[in-house]
């Protein structure tokens, strides 16, 4: 019951985040949304473990806690320094 | 949860259609690879939904659990995911190479250049 409530709250937040990821408007909003979505995934996986009564699969959530970071860093780096070594017209950040 | 029992397959089909559509209708090669990825994920989901048994849990044996989901599709898909990313990398490498050779990654522009020769 308690876990179900938690899962539903997480899902609702996920939906909100996804709305932001799809809507944009800038590329940074999307990165932010993906980052938050990763955190929410961690929460949801943990909660689901308790919900089904087998909470020993938290390794998965641990992976996300560690690895999700890499994606965000990569994106930020790419966006921030993509003008480097790009011959022409590279300065636009590639988002409408 | 008590939905018509086939809806998961339909969703997989819709997902697959999306991927397929992207592969055919878009000219950008990177986008095509993304489409292939979606297609691939839809297949993965298909296998995994087939493996699910109602009332079962993850196939890691433990005391006092009688019903497990089917482990075989899990094995197949587990390896397929890693292989998938490797082949995606190969495809992306090809795209990069094509960009070097033609200066564009748009399918129709490449075709136009080919025809000009």
């Amino acid at each position, binding site marked *: 019951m*308690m*876990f179900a*409530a*938690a899962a*539903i*709250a*997480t899902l*609702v*937040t*996920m*939906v*909100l*985040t996804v*709305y*932001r990821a799809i809507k944009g408007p*800038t*590329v*940074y*909003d999307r*990165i*932010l*949304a993906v*980052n*938050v979505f990763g*955190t*929410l995934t*961690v*929460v949801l996986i*943990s*909660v689901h473990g*308790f919900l089904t009564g087998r*909470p*020993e699969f*938290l*390794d998965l*959530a*641990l992976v996300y*806690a*560690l690895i*999700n*970071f890499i994606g*965000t*860093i990569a*994106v*930020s*780096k790419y*966006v*921030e320094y993509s003008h480097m070594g790009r011959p022409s017209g590279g300065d636009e*950040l590639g988002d409408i | 949860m008590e939905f018509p029992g086939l809806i998961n397959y339909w969703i997989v089909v819709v997902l697959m259609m999306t991927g397929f559509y992207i592969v055919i209708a878009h000219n950008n090669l990177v986008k095509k690879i993304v489409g292939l990825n979606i297609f691939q994920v839809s297949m993965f989901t298909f296998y995994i939904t087939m493996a699910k048994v109602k009332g079962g849990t993850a196939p890691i044996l433990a005391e006092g659990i009688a019903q497990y989901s089917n482990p075989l599709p899990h094995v197949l898909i587990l390896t397929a995911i890693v292989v998938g990313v490797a082949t995606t990398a190969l495809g992306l490498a090809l795209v990069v190479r094509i960009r070097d050779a033609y200066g564009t990654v748009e399918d129709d522009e490449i075709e136009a250049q080919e025809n000009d020769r």
Partner: protein
Amino acid sequence: MEMLLDAVSWLLILIGSAFLVVGGIGIVRLPDVFARMHGAGIIDTVGTCAMLLGLMVQAGFTIVTIKLVLIVVFILFTSPTATHALARAALGGGARPQVADSPADADAGEGDSPSKT
């Protein structure tokens, strides 16, 4: 004792859920990236931590709790860092924080203001 633990974890999970949803609304409703980061911050810190703390109370002293602690620690390390990197990228990429009265303030605060505290 059992009752007390249950009540505590209920409370924590409810707090966590509330903050998650509030953060989500913030992400949707706030006007620009920098403002939205506040919503993300709420989700990443208070929401997640309260939620996982509630789970910890449920789990008791087992390996599960240790893993949950690790998860909390990692999230507390990574997500502010990621947000920081993102804020830098956004500033470098030309996005400017929306400021209520004068746009000059925005220029003055450029550079290191998001990185410190």
